[in-house]
């Protein structure tokens, strides 16, 4: 999706502003949004790619005008509404209006184990890798209307395979509820001038992690 989240190389956002001694959260509501988002993935049963797509699939002005945790809030609101867990009217009213759905709940004594386990994306495979370290590849020029993790700034560009990571859940499919479709995942490196032209930094290399179907031999 050609959305505002795809920021690599976009000009005009100004300087980075580091914040000395930055706290983990800047307001109580950020703590709550963080914890609610983490906890609601149990009853909601959505995956990380669905979460990302719910945050990103919105008009650019909306994405750019919200702070980070405001985007998280909008994301879970959307995911909960889609699943009939919480309707927008209930949030407006501040009380339950629809019946509770019978769903599992994350309990306090499970939190440590759930965080410890995480959500590995690697999957067993018998399929051989199509590329080896050192192979030259060209990134496909695709612009799907749905979720993708192929950034605009590398599309169409020539790169070199730097690392193989095994087969991983394919977000483009997983975000849309169409299955995990595990594919080989590679780190692909690009020369700075390949990406940014003759004025690019000649001492720069940039890499992205890219699934097999983003690549073609070059």
């Amino acid at each position, binding site marked *: 999706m050609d959305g505002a*989240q795809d*920021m*690599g*190389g*976009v000009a005009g*956002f100004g300087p*980075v*502003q*580091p*914040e000395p001694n*930055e706290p*983990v*959260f800047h307001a109580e*509501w950020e*703590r*709550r*949004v*963080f*914890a*609610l988002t983490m*906890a*609601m993935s149990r*009853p909601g049963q959505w995956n*990380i790619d669905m979460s990302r797509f719910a945050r*990103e699939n919105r008009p650019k002005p909306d994405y*750019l005008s919200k*702070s980070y945790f*405001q985007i998280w*809030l909008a994301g879970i609101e959307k995911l909960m509404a889609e699943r009939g867990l*919480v309707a927008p009217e209930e*949030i407006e*009213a*501040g*009380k339950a209006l629809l019946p*509770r759905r019978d769903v599992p*709940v*994350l*309990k*306090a004594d499970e*939190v*440590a184990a759930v965080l*410890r*386990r995480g959500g*590995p*994306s690697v999957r067993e495979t018998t399929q051989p890798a199509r590329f080896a370290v050192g192979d030259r590849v060209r990134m496909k020029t695709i612009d799907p209307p749905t979720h993708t*993790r*192929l950034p605009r*700034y590398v599309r169409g560009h020539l790169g070199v395979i730097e*690392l193989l*990571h095994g087969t*991983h859940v394919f977000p483009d499919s997983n975000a849309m509820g169409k299955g995990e479709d595990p594919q080989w995942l590679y*780190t692909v490196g690009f020369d700075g001038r390949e*990406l940014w032209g003759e004025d690019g*930094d000649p*001492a*720069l290399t*940039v890499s*992205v*992690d890219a*699934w097999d179907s983003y690549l073609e031999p070059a």
Partner: protein
Amino acid sequence: MTDHDHHHDHDHSELSETELRVRALESVLTEKGYVDPAALDELIQTYETKVGPRNGARVIARAWNDPAYRARLLADATPAILELGYAGRQGEHIVAVENTPQLHNMVVCTLCSCYPWSVLGLPPVWYKAAPYRSRAVKDPRGVLDDFGVALPEGTKIKVWDSTAEIRYLVVPMRPDGTAGMSEEQLAELVTRDSMIGTGLARQPAEAA
């Protein structure tokens, strides 16, 4: 307006609106029994007090002091990091990349905010905000300048854009004058930013 500006924006009415909405949402979720309030407290406490950049600093200090550990970390970081007890969410697949006098590594997520939580905790605001996400892959030297960091002339830069579930941890260069220091002392020199690649490790004099 960028994420970052927003946090420094004192538009109180807008923040209040968000605060009210979050409170209302939490009330509904609690009333419906979808969340356990004690689980929420546990989640917040974990990332405010237990999981943070001190974890990563211990990994780096061990790598500086123990060549065999450094080799394991660079070869396959996830199990090497588990040796120190760190694992789990947003640290399931970690690759450690080492800075040298010739090469400086920097990590970004241009698409969202991917970050190695298990070793660095939750990402800072600037890491999630548009200026860093947009410029790191195109003008990393300019970004370093925003952090007050200048690399020696001729140092190559490698920027790792975390577009999948692989998380990158930068192993900064060990400062001079640290021979004989304990791992605990060395860990004090390892800053969060040095493990993202937007900073360098502290000199011993700075930490004293």
